[in-house]
């Protein structure tokens, strides 16, 4: 292992009121976002949510119609991409096929007219960072996808960028390689203290890598916060549905008893702990599948449902159960100690329940 080379500090990123439309389509509609120095923020959303456009605005490939982009104290809104000192990693690696690995990594240094010996030293250090020492003279086409992306990573950090942008960099890789590279990206980012903005539509990736996640939908950030907060307390139905699996029911809030409220949703009376939600309004209740418990005969629970098992999927450490209670569907995930393989068969009737504290309410 090489020790982290001394480097210029990473810079914070500040986006203010960024708007961008393509013809009649609003790609990004007034986004504010601040990323602290050294922070890893993920823009998570489906395709068409504006996350890629926002990244391109930061990179300088798209000029925003309004709003400003600051990297550190510098307003870079009108600056060409090459002057912004951003290290960008692309989905398809974007290695220059006619240059060797070493010349690819040296590219940002040689266009900055860095002295030759220093280029050699820094390229070697950058390749060692991604454990690709000795691959200098290979051409990109002679490397595997994972190796190519690691070369791209090292090319994106070799010139001490103030900011790193990652545009779905693992999209083209198979699952195992993806996981390896995700760890590598995170390790490199922490070690070098890089400010990083990462774009993905993969919620697992976002949960794993991010300090904070910005959930994007229809050109706006719906919610931004640490992964556990986004997962446990989504503020919108979209965020709840997009991150992790969830059981969602909407209906009016019919009663309040201290901190507990009752929601008449889908023919059920759901009890939830939600001091902030007013009685009389409507709300969407979210219960994560792993919060749905399998109940014994007399076991008490705030919410109880009898259901028939429709489908079972084996996921390794856990199994996922698709349950039907009348016309309602719900999903439960139980680990193998709670429900060993074969203990419940498709068609069996089970009683499940969850506590009021496990219900998260989204107003509206």
């Amino acid at each position: 292992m090489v020790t982290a080379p001394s480097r210029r500090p990473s810079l914070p990123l500040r986006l203010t009121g960024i708007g961008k439309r393509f013809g009649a389509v609003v790609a990004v509609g007034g986004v504010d976002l601040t990323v602290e120095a050294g922070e890893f923020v993920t823009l998570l959303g489906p395709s068409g949510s504006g996350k890629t456009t926002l990244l391109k605005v930061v990179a300088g490939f798209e000029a925003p119609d309004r709003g400003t982009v600051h990297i550190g104290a510098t307003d870079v809104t009108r600056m060409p991409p090459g002057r912004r000192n951003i290290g960008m990693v692309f989905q398809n690696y974007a290695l220059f096929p006619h240059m060797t690995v070493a010349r690819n990594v040296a590219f940002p240094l040689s266009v900055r007219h860095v002295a030759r010996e220093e280029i050699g030293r820094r390229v070697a250090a950058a390749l060692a960072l991604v454990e690709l020492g000795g691959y200098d003279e290979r051409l990109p086409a002679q490397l595997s996808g994972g190796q190519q992306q690691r070369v791209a990573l090292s090319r994106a950090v070799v010139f001490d960028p103030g900011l790193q942008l990652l545009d779905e960099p693992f999209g083209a890789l198979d699952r195992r390689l993806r996981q390896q590279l995700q760890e590598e990206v995170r390790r490199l980012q922490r070690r070098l203290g890089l400010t990083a903005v990462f774009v993905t539509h993969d919620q697992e990736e976002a949960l794993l890598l991010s300090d904070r996640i910005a959930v994007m939908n229809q050109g706006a950030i719906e919610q931004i916060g640490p992964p556990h907060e986004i997962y446990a307390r989504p503020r919108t139905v979209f965020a709840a549905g997009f991150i992790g699996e969830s059981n969602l029911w909407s209906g009016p809030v019919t009663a309040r008893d201290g901190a507990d409220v009752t929601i008449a949703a889908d023919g059920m009376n759901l009890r939830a702990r939600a001091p902030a939600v007013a009685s009389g309004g409507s709300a969407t209740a979210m219960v994560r599948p792993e919060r749905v418990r399998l109940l014994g005969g007399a076991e008490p629970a705030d919410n109880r449902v009898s259901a028939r098992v429709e489908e079972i999927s084996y996921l390794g450490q856990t199994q996922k159960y698709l349950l039907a209670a009348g016309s309602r569907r719900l999903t439960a995930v139980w680990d193998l100690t709670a429900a060993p393989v074969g203990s419940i068969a498709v068609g069996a009737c089970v009683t499940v329940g969850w506590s009021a504290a496990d219900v998260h309410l989204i107003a509206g």
Partner: protein
Amino acid sequence: MAEAPGRRRWLGRALAGYAAFVLALLLAPLLIVVPISFSSARYLQFPPPGWSLRWYARYFADPQWIESTLVSLRVATGTTALALVLGTALAYSIVRGRYRGRRMVERLSTGPMIVPHIVIAIAIYGIFARLRLTGTEAGLILAHTVLAIPFVVSVMSAALRTVDPALEQAAMSLGVGRIGAIVRVTLPLIRPGIVSASILAFLSSFDEVVVALFLSGTTKTLPKQMFDNILVEIDPTIAAVSVLQIALVVVALAVVARFGARTVPR
């Protein structure tokens, strides 16, 4: 089913025969021209009564032939350079641009290929006469560039489409401007296309006769000289010149095959 193999063999023979016929048609002129160029006779006579190199000697000894060859080489070189720069820029704008009317520009860029050369020749003559560009090499270069641009645009836009735009973006994010990205990344990647486009542009000028007939005046290109030569005297020098010209084309095509783009769209 029983007769199928027999029928297939018959089809195969028919196809081979047809191919041989087409090949013969394509080669026939060569089989006549090449022997005549080595003929010892004073007139175009086939088969030649004897062999000699006198017509080649005559070509190399005649200042008119040599001068027109040099004119053609200079005009073709100038045309290649100009058409390559303009055509590549146009192809880049067609492939990477995002402006209104881009498709219209793409269609228009093939215009000189569609409009009959005689029409272009007359139109250019009309303009150049006023600009005093007739009879000059510069005039010929400009006119031939118009004709060569469609070749360059079609080859170069096909080549540019094979280059992932993300590569240019990567280069730009790593610290160069758009021009720097094109020079350092895009152009090296489309070098085979550049070779193909150059040679097509060169040959389109070197072989061109219609525009040259109108514009040459006293600055004769090789095809114009050949044309004039046929009008006044018919001797096998013309065959010798043709063979030299064919040899040049063969060399050029060999260069394309070796260094050029794999497919040359026309």
